[in-house]
């Protein structure tokens, strides 16, 4: 049995089901991170003193990571566009770059985290570090999740290209939407935690 509108677009809604699904998922993600940003605001407003991000955090490294993530979003779009242009070889290349940039982000984050631990800064040290570790930690889990999906679509999942190229392109587009969202969260996290 085949479910209608999995790949093809339903004319009156103008969408396929996967696209609706991923946007709904992102809506719930907005609520998840929204609640955490709200928490940040409430705790900061109520705090007697609030440290400047640069006191604890490494702004150059975070800037580097911001550039890395934005680049990965660009390669993600290129990967999808390559499929649209029927160029599977280019897709492989760009998709690998996307996953690779994600890996670079994680490595940089690893050095940041271990530097904090080395200095004796832990989540329990104060409220600022607590929210820093919680939000960046949750974001990191999202990066890992996105990387896993993208790596799957680069590797074993790419078999679908041979049998149903449109379906496969849709999958890359949807995983791309998620990846851009993860990128966007970081674009908010960076100024809020490091700069303000």
């Amino acid at each position: 049995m085949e479910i209608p509108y999995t790949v093809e677009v339903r004319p009156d809604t103008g969408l396929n089901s996967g696209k609706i699904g991923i946007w709904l998922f992102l809506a719930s993600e907005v609520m998840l991170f929204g609640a955490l940003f709200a928490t940040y605001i409430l705790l900061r407003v109520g705090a007697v003193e609030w440290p400047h991000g640069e006191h604890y955090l490494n702004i150059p490294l975070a800037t580097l990571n911001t550039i890395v993530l934005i680049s990965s979003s660009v390669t993600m779009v290129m990967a999808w566009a390559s499929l649209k242009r029927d160029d599977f070889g280019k897709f492989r290349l760009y998709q690998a770059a996307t996953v690779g940039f994600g890996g670079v982000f994680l490595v940089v984050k690893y050095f940041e985290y271990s530097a904090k631990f080395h200095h004796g800064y832990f989540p329990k040290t104060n409220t600022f570090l607590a929210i820093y570790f919680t939000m960046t930690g949750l974001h990191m889990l999202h990066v890992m999740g996105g990387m896993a999906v993208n790596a799957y679509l680069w590797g074993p999942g790419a078999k679908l290209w041979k049998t149903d190229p449109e379906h496969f392109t849709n999958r890359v587009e949807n995983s791309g939407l998620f990846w851009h969202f993860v990128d966007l969260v970081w674009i908010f996290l960076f100024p809020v935690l490091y700069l303000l």
Partner: protein
Amino acid sequence: MGPTDTKAGAHHAPAHEHGSDHEELSFWRKYVFSTDHKTIGIQYAVTGLLFLLFGFCLMMLMRWQLAFPGRALPLIGKLFGEARMPGGTMLPTFYNELGAMHGTIMVFLGVVPLAVGGFGNFVLPLQIGAPDMSFPRLNMASYWFFFMGGVTMLLSFFVPGGAAQSGWTSYTPLADIAGSGQTVWILGMICLITSSLLGAINFITTTIQLRAKGLSFFRMPFFCWTQFVTAFLLLLAFPPLEAAGLLQLMDRVAGTSFFLPTGLVVSGQALQVSGGGNPLLWQHLFWFLAHPEVYVLILPAMGIVAEIIANNTRKPLFGYRSMVYSLIFLGFMSFIVWAHHMFMTGMGTTMAAFFQTTTMIISIPSVVILTSLIISLWGGSIRFNTPMLFALAFLPMFGIGGLTGLPLGLNITDIPLHDTYYVIAHFHYVVAPGTIFALFAGIYYWFPKATGRRMSERLGRLHFWPSLIFMNGVFMPMFLTGLAGMSRRLADGGATYAFTKPVLHYNQWSSFSAWALAIAQIPFIINFFWSIKHGEPAEANAWQATTLEWAAAPSPPGHGNFKELPVVTRGPYEYSVPGAARDFIPQNARAEG
């Protein structure tokens, strides 16, 4: 109907699915790891019913302690071990475990899975004429996340220190410093939140994408509308609780102080934490979920009742469009009323004024829906079968629950009533004789669709009347004890307070009614299992109904639901149309003239 109606699904995908083209599936794929929405719906419903029973058993234990505080529980008391009930007498900590887990289980593992996971999964695709859900594998994952969450919650009784004891609301800072059961509670909740997230995405996408040709939004049965709105509430309200759970987990495991204020003293000792947190933050995040959650509990129930009332009055629903608009409005409003649970926290008058205003506003659409349902009865030749009896009982019971909520929504009257048995009585009237009666109605109503056989009417009545009487026996006295000031979380039922003396005996009324209510469920359990094999065979359209699940699908529907996908030509409730040959015209009947 607007111009979009004719466009809706006009270019429908060719119906390449035939009800009968199923390949043979192994037992495991067919009944356990099934991707068929009907099987998953039944899995949800049965698991939900079992959890309802379990949660009810926890409550019956508590009711012994409330009726006879400090007295040993005869016969089974000793089974719970010395750590919980030494000599058969319940310790307050065990009472707290039971209380917290009763609430958690009833809400998150009983009612919601049955109302949304069970009825939503089983009925929604059938009613909109879809072969299955949009994402069948996601649907299966949703059930198994729910199952894992349930198992996690059950296992939490066995960790050192027992299950969560901080109430189903898990208020901080109490929950931050509670025993390890609370950590397991959070992990269980994360599974349940994941489950409802996947389910919500699936329900919304399915409703948008898989409506049959001709089934515009305003031709959808009211039940589908309730599931659609409910799914949005689940999608958007649960993530903040997930965030809150994460923060509480960090507090408990990583030693952070999100919810722990500076200078917190526990048992006479200053807590060694960094402090700087805010206990009220938890309440805000929690109620941001939990108020919409109230509507998650009630909306599907309204949907079920609406279907049954239209079918058994043989009349169109009164004010179908107003009901739908009210429903949507209610969904929006439910996100901005949450702090009416928090009047006691000392919020300023401006805040309180805002939230009591929104609370009064949200009562309007509820009243519109309830009133429409009552007016729908007017002038109908009503068939009093078991589903209809439960649906009819829902109306006054939910009415009592709703109206007694108004004083709780106003700051000035909430303050003396807050955290008393009045609150317990109020929300139980909404959820127990309200929602649960609607769920029973739904089971009796859709049972013939799921099994091809009817449940026994005689046993149904034997279930209904005692249940109605004893439900009221349990909860009506609580209004009195609550108004007298009895607090809701006391392990001795208020026996230590002088001012509760005149009403204390009502505790025994409630308890005996609760135990009698348990006995009243026996006919239902017998009926349920007996009728699967031996019930009176039912034809495909067992209730002469108009909606697609009855009019277009066999009972039980095969894999893929319909022989060919139905085409909808009319609205959902064309009953007793003047001049028609029969007193109902199915939604997929050929257009006349």
